[in-house]
């Protein structure tokens, strides 16, 4: 009797686990399946759960008809640029904040933290005007600069934690050998912060890649526009002809690289997320 109960309990538990997995994965799975189905099968009230019959027509449509390739390139430039700039600024600031004696250190950290607290929408009007004054409206650089609003504080918080965790002796040994603080940063600390850089870089890239509000507001047309606003506005000639196949194909194209990155670096991302959150 007791054994039966235990087996039942275990079975119930695995049903729960299966439910969690299906709940998490199914929408993405369904997008992938839908993107490979010909329109006839897509608009069926008895759809198959596998992409049969199989077609690449939606992927062709996405890349041939729309300016999706351009949007994709823009996203790469903007997210890549924002990531590189955040990492560069973030590393040097985080080194100072994490390793050097420096009186108003906490004040600077709180300013950076406050930046993560206030909502993007609250500075939308001000940034809009600033970008226009600087001639950066509808430019990649304009978007990159505005993305620093959320990528930089996060980068700094996580990297400060990384730098703090490194042993003091390494630095002292470098000083004894006559290295300047700057040399110490570049030659000793930076290589050790490598894993931290990868994690924060990834998180910054994902945040910038997914950003919608600024991309929608600070760009016009497809020349600079990134993928999220492009996918959001993907529509047919009328509300009755929404090209669901193409939308799903585009969704899969922008999501698959992220999903792969996340799967490969999952342990680090979880560590980064929780570190950033717990410290924040």
């Amino acid at each position: 009797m007791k054994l039966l109960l235990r087996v039942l309990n275990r079975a119930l538990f695995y049903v729960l686990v299966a439910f969690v997995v299906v709940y998490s994965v199914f929408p993405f799975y369904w997008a992938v399946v839908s993107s490979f189905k010909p329109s006839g099968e897509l608009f069926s009230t008895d759809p198959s759960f596998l992409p049969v019959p199989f077609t690449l027509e939606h992927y062709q449509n996405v890349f041939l008809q729309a300016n999706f390739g351009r949007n994709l390139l823009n996203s790469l430039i903007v997210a890549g640029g924002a990531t590189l700039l955040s990492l560069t600024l973030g590393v040097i600031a985080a080194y100072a904040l994490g390793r050097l004696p420096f009186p108003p250190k906490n004040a600077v950290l709180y300013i950076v933290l406050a930046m993560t607290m206030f909502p993007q929408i609250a500075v939308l009007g001000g940034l809009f005007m600033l970008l226009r004054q600087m001639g950066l409206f509808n430019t990649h650089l304009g978007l990159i600069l505005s993305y620093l609003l959320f990528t930089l504080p996060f980068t700094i918080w996580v990297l400060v934690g990384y730098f703090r965790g490194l042993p003091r002796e390494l630095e002292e040994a470098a000083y004894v050998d006559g290295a300047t603080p700057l040399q110490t940063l570049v030659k000793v600390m930076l290589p050790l912060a490598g894993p931290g850089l990868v994690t924060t870089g990834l998180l910054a890239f994902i945040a910038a890649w997914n950003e919608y509000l600024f991309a929608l507001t600070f760009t016009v047309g497809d020349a600079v526009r990134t993928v999220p606003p492009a996918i959001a506005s993907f529509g047919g000639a009328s509300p009755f002809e929404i090209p669901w196949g193409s939308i799903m194909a585009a969704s899969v194209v922008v999501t698959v690289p992220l999903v792969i990155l996340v799967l490969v670096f999952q342990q680090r991302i979880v560590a980064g997320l929780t570190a950033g959150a717990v410290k924040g």
Partner: protein
Amino acid sequence: MLTRRQARLAWLLVLPTLLVVLLVAGYPLAQVFYWSLFRADIAFVEPPEFVGLEHYLYLLQDPDFRQALWNTLRFTVISVTLETLLGLAIALIIHSNFKGRGLVRTAILIPWAIPTVVSARMWEWMLHDIYGIINILGVRLGLLSEKVAFLARPELLFASIVAVDVWKTTPFMALILLAGLQLIPEELYEAASIDGATKWQQFWTITLPLLTPALVVALIFRTLDALRVFDVIFVLSGLNPATRSLAIYNRQTLIDFQDLGYGSAISVAILVLIFLFVVFYMRTLGKEALR
């Protein structure tokens, strides 16, 4: 000697970041405060006119603002509550020992990795009134008596938006809570079970109190995020007043109506709202978290 040189270097290294903070946060924020006191359009077609607190007074009686505020608060309370409960359940499941645990942890990261805009469109397709898989399966499994136009009826639209947001953000909640769970020493549970405490008692007397710091952090993050919600609602229902959030109403005023003055006042109101929530959390839960 070295310390002074180091302090100088530190300033030098922090300077670029401070400049960026000033440029993309400080200056725009100051502009928003400043222009909220003026009647002005965003292109300055008309010369700006100082109106003092007029916009703030109007804010108090603007029915559109009130509706957007209500929509935002309702969205925040319902979605954060659901995410917390669901996130806690998932964290507890993953925390226990079983085969394929790593796989499950990986699976729940997928919604987090998908851009909000994309997840909104994926769900829009799944919720399609005729060809949506949810309608098809719902009818087939007898969960729905007939197909439902989820995104056409206001209450169902709101529920759909919440469902998409919960799907997308629960993983974040679950991961933070999982990290919290892993900090609780195993011995406490061993001691408790020797003393004859049931699993349920262990949960209330050990897990929950010790998980509070992680819970507070996750709650603050998710609440602040929910209060500024834009993407998921904008993609699923656009400017529809029945679901329009504060952020959507704010952007519409600023960009679509070009109303720099009133739009800025709304921005300030959102900031104040978020500030109030932070203070509220710090007051009620902060002590627990910082214990």
